[in-house]
């Protein structure tokens, strides 16, 4: 008998064990249908449309008021619309901000306002109190000057904080590029504009737009429609309707070819990438449903192509996504990621590759089905929140969607075909008409990005700037660049041990070979002689206070400023003397010297002579000096480049120098460098 029971028990348990085959993904049980919760809708005499979603799961209720007006262009006072929304929460005719805060917090509620909304929620038991506060904020905002000043101060500090945030910078730049400053979506907050906003600006906004006839009120949660109706009549019935202006704007379009918009953030360890352009996509259209499915495959989630490629396969980033947004005025496409600095261009390449692929090749069926499942699954999960039902109801009204838009949503998603996806991708995915916005370390990413299109350097507000200035790391000065150079060639101590240097070189110009010898000694003494077949063709001498130059035996007349320049620029380790000579040094920017980024330091000597020196960003070594000459043919640049640094007596000397004036080049190859030689006393005698 006992055995029998054991046997029965075994049978009872066995079938389940037997079903499990670990090697295969378990099959799904029959799917349950997602039911979209019901809502009630009614309109008050003043035109306020009310939507009620009843849900008693938790004892909470939420009220959201949405003002549905056309976007407002703020002109030279960008920010005032947002401040108008914020100030409503900062005090009413009878309650100061502190009192409002206190009363809201006391019931553990939340109450917030924006330029187009008021939102409040609380436990059901505090609902009456919440509505007192909600309606007070709606009807009786105080618009106090003092609160405006505080909001301005916070806004300005916020602006300052955002200057460090690469994502904020990217989003500013995107707004400016996509829509332009004449469009409400393209306006960017600027300090001086925020300063100029007045309380009258805010009042006028409130008086014009907070009207019931363009508003929706959604009530969600632990409340019955009957009670909601009663409350709404009592609390919102007397709100007066008003004429609200309607505005239209020019529709922004995508650029004709790719534009790389580079914002330098020299301390970045990552590049924030944002590939974006405006699109004409209206909410709730069949195009939107198709675009939604297409974008899901491209970059809608971690199962999208962008994520799989750029994070999964390449590991360039923590996440790579794209989005496609619809809007009654103008929508947009975005694809982006924060990527390691050194793979910035590789990442852009992959983004564009995936964009191109999805718009030229039909997607496989299994991938299409996966995308649909993801969308439908997310749709179903969102239904857990009663707020979702309310937003469905509001959208249906606002965008005049078909009544069954959301109840047919799953069916419509399922109906999108591979052909639909290809057609919609051709229409909306534009790998050749995009703004490629990159916020990162310009000196390291510029060259790589230039292959995708014209590179425009922008500041954090999207204004074009001189690229050279942008790439200087914060805090770096000319003195620091020179200090690094001295360190790089051996350090002050090693340099100090060198009394003099004697350099023998072969000079090549226009097919001829000449002999050169250069001697430099401490005390700003130098001598240079170039000779051909034993005959001196050029010489220059400095003795620390005076200088002489002769060519083919003829003395070249020098003005004082030229003498000063000759003495300093040809002295041993001349950079040492710049400061004590009273020269003015300035870090002008970063420029590319034969493919290598270099800091450009300008030198202005006390007597007015000027020249520039270029130091490698990477190695700190001096790569070049240059000087602008006034010649009978106009201005020409005389440049001397330094390459092939090799160590002699603990100090690195360039073993190849090339001098160029206009198209002429003189190459100087070093044959030997000798240090601390005994020199004849009259070596540096200036004749």
């Amino acid at each position, binding site marked *: 008998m006992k055995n029998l029971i054991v046997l029965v028990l075994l049978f009872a348990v066995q079938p389940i064990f037997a079903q499990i085959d670990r090697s295969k993904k378990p099959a799904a049980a029959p799917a349950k249908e997602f039911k979209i919760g019901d809502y009630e809708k009614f309109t008050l005499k003043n035109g306020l449309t009310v939507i009620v979603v009843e849900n008693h799961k938790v004892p909470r209720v939420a009220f959201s008021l949405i003002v549905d007006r056309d976007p407002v262009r703020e002109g030279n006072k960008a920010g005032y619309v947002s401040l108008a929304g914020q100030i409503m929460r900062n005090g009413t005719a009878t309650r100061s901000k502190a009192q409002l*805060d206190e009363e*809201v917090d006391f019931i553990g509620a939340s109450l917030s306002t924006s330029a187009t909304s008021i939102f409040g929620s609380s436990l059901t038991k505090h609902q009456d109190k919440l509505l007192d506060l909600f309606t007070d904020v709606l009807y009786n905002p105080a618009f106090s000057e003092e609160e405006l000043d505080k909001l301005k101060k916070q806004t300005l500090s916020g602006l300052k*904080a955002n200057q460090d945030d690469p994502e904020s910078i990217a989003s500013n730049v995107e707004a400016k590029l996509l829509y332009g400053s004449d469009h409400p979506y393209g306006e960017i907050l600027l300090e001086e504009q925020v300063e100029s906003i007045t309380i009258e600006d805010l009042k006028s906004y409130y008086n014009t737009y907070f009207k019931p006839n363009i508003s929706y009120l959604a009530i969600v949660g632990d409340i019955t429609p009957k009670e909601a109706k009663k409350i709404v009549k009592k609390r919102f019935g007397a709100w007066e309707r008003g004429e609200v202006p309607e505005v239209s704007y020019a529709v922004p379009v995508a650029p004709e070819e790719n534009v790389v918009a580079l914002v330098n953030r020299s*301390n*970045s360890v990552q590049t924030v990438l944002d590939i974006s352009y405006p699109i004409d996509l209206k909410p709730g259209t069949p195009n939107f449903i198709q675009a939604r499915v297409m974008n899901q495959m491209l970059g809608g989630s971690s199962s999208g192509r962008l994520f799989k490629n750029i994070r*999964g396969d390449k590991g*360039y980033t923590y996440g790579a996504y794209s989005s496609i947004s619809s809007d009654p005025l103008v929508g947009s496409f975005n694809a982006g990621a924060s990527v390691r600095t050194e793979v910035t261009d590789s990442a852009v390449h992959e983004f564009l590759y995936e964009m191109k692929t999805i718009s030229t090749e039909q997607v496989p069926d299994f991938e299409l089905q996966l995308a649909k499942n993801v969308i439908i699954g997310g749709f179903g*999960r969102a239904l857990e929140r009663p707020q979702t039902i309310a937003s469905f109801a509001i959208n249906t009204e606002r965008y005049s969607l078909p009544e069954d838009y959301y109840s047919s949503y799953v069916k419509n998603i399922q109906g999108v075909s591979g052909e639909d996806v290809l057609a919609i991708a051709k229409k909306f995915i534009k790998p050749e008409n995009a703004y490629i916005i990159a916020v990162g370390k310009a000196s390291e990413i510029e060259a790589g990005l230039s292959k995708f299109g014209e590179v425009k350097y922008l500041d954090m507000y999207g204004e074009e700037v001189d690229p050279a200035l942008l790439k200087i790391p914060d805090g770096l000065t000319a003195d620091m660049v020179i200090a690094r150079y001295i360190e790089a060639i051996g350090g002050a101590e090693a340099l100090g041990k060198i009394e003099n240097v004697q350099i023998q070189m072969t000079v090549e110009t226009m097919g001829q070979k000449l002999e050169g010898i250069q001697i430099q000694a401490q005390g700003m003494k130098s001598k240079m002689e170039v000779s051909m077949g034993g005959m001196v063709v050029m010489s220059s001498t400095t003795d620390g206070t005076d200088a002489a130059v002769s060519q083919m035996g003829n003395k070249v007349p020098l003005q004082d400023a030229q003498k000063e320049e000759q003495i300093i620029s040809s002295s041993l380790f001349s950079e040492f003397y710049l400061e004590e000579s009273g020269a003015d040094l300035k870090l002008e920017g970063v420029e590319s010297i034969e493919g290598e980024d270099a800091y450009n330091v300008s030198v202005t000597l006390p007597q007015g002579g000027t020249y520039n020196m270029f130091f490698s960003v990477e190695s700190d070594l001096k790569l070049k000096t240059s000087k602008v000459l006034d010649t009978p043919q106009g201005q020409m640049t005389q440049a001397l480049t330094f390459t092939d640094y090799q160590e002699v007596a603990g100090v690195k000397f360039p073993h190849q120098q090339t001098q160029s004036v206009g198209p002429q080049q003189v190459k100087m190859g070093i044959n030997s460098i000798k240090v601390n030689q005994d020199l004849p006393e009259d070596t540096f005698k200036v004749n």
Partner: protein
Amino acid sequence: MKNFLSVLLTFLLAAVSAQERRIEFVEYDLSNGLHVILHKDNSTPIIAVSTMYHVGSKDEEVDKTGFAHFFEHVASRKSENIPVGGFTEYVSEAGGARNASTSFDRTYYYELLPSNQLELGLWLESERMFNMIVDSGVVETEREVVKEEKRARYDNQPYGTFIIEMLKRAFTEHHYMWPPIGSMEHINAATIEDFKAFKNKYYVPNNAVLSIAGDIEVEKTKELVEAYFGEFERGPAVVRDEIVEPKQKVEVVDTVFDNVQLPALFMAYHTPEIGAADYYAMNMVNLILANGASSRMNRKLVDETQLALAAGAQDLAAEDPGLSLVFAIATAGTDLEELKATMQGEIDRMKEELVPEKEFQKTKNQIENNFVGGNASIAGIAQSLANYYLIRGNTNLINTEINQYLSVTREDLQKVASKYFNDENRVVLYWLPKPQ
């Protein structure tokens, strides 16, 4: 009679509505030690399937920081029966969502799925627990991803590294001295052998909780859980080094230069572990200081004096004694010493004065609201249940913990503020813009 009925009806309704706030659950152990918690809510056809392992960054060795989190990434990639990427792909195919997180004390994995995909969730979690594969392909890809996560969330964010700087000064012995993200150097150095050892030690059923919430049938789910998890063996008992942080005796003050525009001030006081006698009162002190626009710090620093752009206080509540963080980001042009003195004023006031009745009641109302909000989604419920069991040893705290708060008195608040808000018990960090 009619009146009586209506009174009775009202009573019954009231009872029902009180019942609604209670989270019902069943819990039990499998023979291999895996603890199972099930919460049934059939209102929407979705489920949350989750596992929580009792291992976090505090279990890492000092030269292998960030490892538990790195492991979390690797553990979500591949198993004997799931190809690389399958964890994510299968969940997506099913229309679900998945993610994972690592804290000081525990590692959490979850899937949100349509309820007809319960078996998928169980299969994935059981594969992770028993059949996970760690190979160099997976490790190398995730190594880069984890490093990017560190750059994105910490290194490339203004003030992003404050927690790193704070912890390494606040703790001298305890492994809370680094955050779960760890260091680049250690992430670079992690080897396959490290992964295998970690897996064998911590990823065993007797060190984990399986928590399932949503549209399930309890009996059927129990059978499936047994089928997917019951066939595997218990692992060796987990032995941990219990490190006690010595009491801080001298105030630590330091300055950090960062790429920020606005200076900030961060302070951290050592506080008791979550659930300790003083914990609830200390938590309420933090709420009074910084929860909501009418909180003391917001009112004083942001509204009245406008010394700060933002101000806050936050419990770093953890299994072992943690920290209470108090911080403010200065408005442009503010002198940090003035900001500090004003913050100090609010902290001292907590010590010197009894919190007024009304403010005390406000704090209790806020707590009640937070509790109701936390239980509004099945994802939140699944995680809370797992957390209460694993860290606190009492699952039912999901229903009863609020009473611990409600039993705190105003005198308790003053007492704990005086006990913990002392200079010698804190670290102060001046966060300054790098000189231009």
